[in-house]
């Protein structure tokens, strides 16, 4: 019986394996949705993460700096009436093009300045960050020095007390080393 079970299981496994290999989509393989959206809270982000997030935003802004529509942006999903609709839209774009460009050129210039301003602010922030790091390092050094000095002061203070007590009791002064 054990042999039969083994044979049957192997056979069934082979069949399933073959079917498995034919399926490309994991969702189909497990019969459930596997991808989800994950909201993220920028407040929890580290400096490095915020930095790369900013770079990502800047590159997205750069991509959409020019609001002037080009011909190829007019497309259709309609099978039958799609072509004439596209044709009409393109004609309209051609007619109104010069007026639209007049307005949108201003918008483009504004967008470019905004991006330049953001980039400028980022550089400023980086420079301030460097300065703060440098200051923190200096403060750290000072703290260590201060610790050493206060330890030495305590030693001197203790020696002084000892010295005064010895003098009061009339003990002979210790040999200086």
């Amino acid at each position, binding site marked *: 019986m054990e042999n039969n079970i*083994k044979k049957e*299981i192997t056979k*069934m496994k082979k069949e399933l394996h073959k079917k498995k290999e034919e399926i490309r989509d994991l969702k189909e393989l497990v019969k459930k949705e596997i991808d989800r959206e994950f909201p993220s809270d920028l407040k929890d982000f580290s400096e*490095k993460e915020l930095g790369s997030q900013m770079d990502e935003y800047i590159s997205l802004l750069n991509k959409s700096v020019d609001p002037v529509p080009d011909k190829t942006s007019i497309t259709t999903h309609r099978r039958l009436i799609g072509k004439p609709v596209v044709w009409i839209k393109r004609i309209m774009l051609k007619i109104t093009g010069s007026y639209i460009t007049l307005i949108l050129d201003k918008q483009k210039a504004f967008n470019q300045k905004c991006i330049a301003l953001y980039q400028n602010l980022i550089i400023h922030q980086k420079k301030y960050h460097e300065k703060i790091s440098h200051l923190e390092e200096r403060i*750290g050094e000072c703290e260590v020095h201060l610790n050493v000095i206060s330890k030495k002061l305590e030693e001197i203070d203790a020696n002084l007390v000892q010295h005064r007590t010895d003098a009061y009791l009339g003990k002979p002064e210790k040999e200086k080393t």
Partner: protein
Amino acid sequence: MERFLALLKNLKIQPHVAFPKFLAEIKRISHSEGIQAAYNCLLQAEVFLNLRKPKLGIYDHAFHFIGGAQKYGLSLISALQDQFDITIISNKEVSHSHFMHWYNLDLSHCEIKIIKLPYFEQKNGLHLDPACISKDEENPFYLISKESGNYDIFVNNSMNEMVYPLSNISVLVCHFPERRPKTYFYADQYTHILHNSQYTAEWIKKKWDLTPHEHVYPPVDMEPGRQKMQKKKTIISVARFEVEGTKRQKEMMETFLKLKNEYPKVTEEWAFKLVGGSDTKNPYLQRLKKIVDQNPDKNIQLKVNIPLEELKSLYQESTLFWHLCGLTHTDPSEIEHFGMTAVEAMQNMVVPVVYDGGGLREIVDHGINGFRVKSKAELLHYSLELFQDKKLVQNLGENAQKKSQEFSRLKFEERIHAFFNRLLSSYSSPD
């Protein structure tokens, strides 16, 4: 699933009666839960009925590189070779001899399977970076996900949460949660998460909102041989020369130079040796070389890509170990997640003076078996103290060696065996 498990138990007691029902149940599962679920049931049945050894597949998208995380994963399967039929899944060509040469691990009983990912093959790079995959692209790791469904246990050892596990038991070895949950994030789909340090566990909770299941420190095996070497006035640093300079070798050099300039008498005989691996074209390493060249009389040496034997003798002859990785970090991933080289030094009675953060806090107890510092100034201060106090060096060194035993290969293997035995017992004889 309960119905299936009940049938599975009956299969042992009354095979004639239970087997037809068992087959029908498999078909039902295939229809309702998908082909993979049905396949998984058959895999479990085979192990339950002792028809074969359990199969374990381990994946790392960086197995073709030498690294601490990869050593962890391969040490893990090295400990399990007798219990499982093991397959090592890699995306690039790699061989048993590489593993032997890099980590001194004989994995000849394990099969190596290379699954090339077309997305990265087109890019022609050796480095596969999951972070570069955007939402608009197809997940290139789906091929690995599909492969994961052929094993009883699938272990994902890479810092790559984009592999959706399909096996009955899936273990994500998390060396650090580098990315936040976003496109193709599947860490929460693994049945178990194993972590390498408490620091990593803390960030798994913070970044992923998940509680990891098992904690196993990495294995460290740099114990000295029987022959004792005379300690020299040497400070050693062992860390990869990262292009971004995250291991902070430059800052350590600056501290050493400051010590040499401000305390010439005390530091007269002391040398600083920086050991690490690097690519040939590394601008950061070039900058370090320049500093060394500019200070020829200061006894600083760079030792790049040296053989293991040389590293061993350097550990044995050194007195202090410096490690500042994490200093002025801008992200938790820039701090040492564990700190294997600190343990290696401690195994050789080298007193560690390390950055106070990350996994290093779990290794070095301040003032007991070394010092933890938060700045270059503190590094200078404590090192100066150690230069002038031989007894302190001796005491801390002895304590360091004692503490290092907690991270030995033996301890690692014990913990791994205990964990996988638990997994296997509930899998092969479910209640």
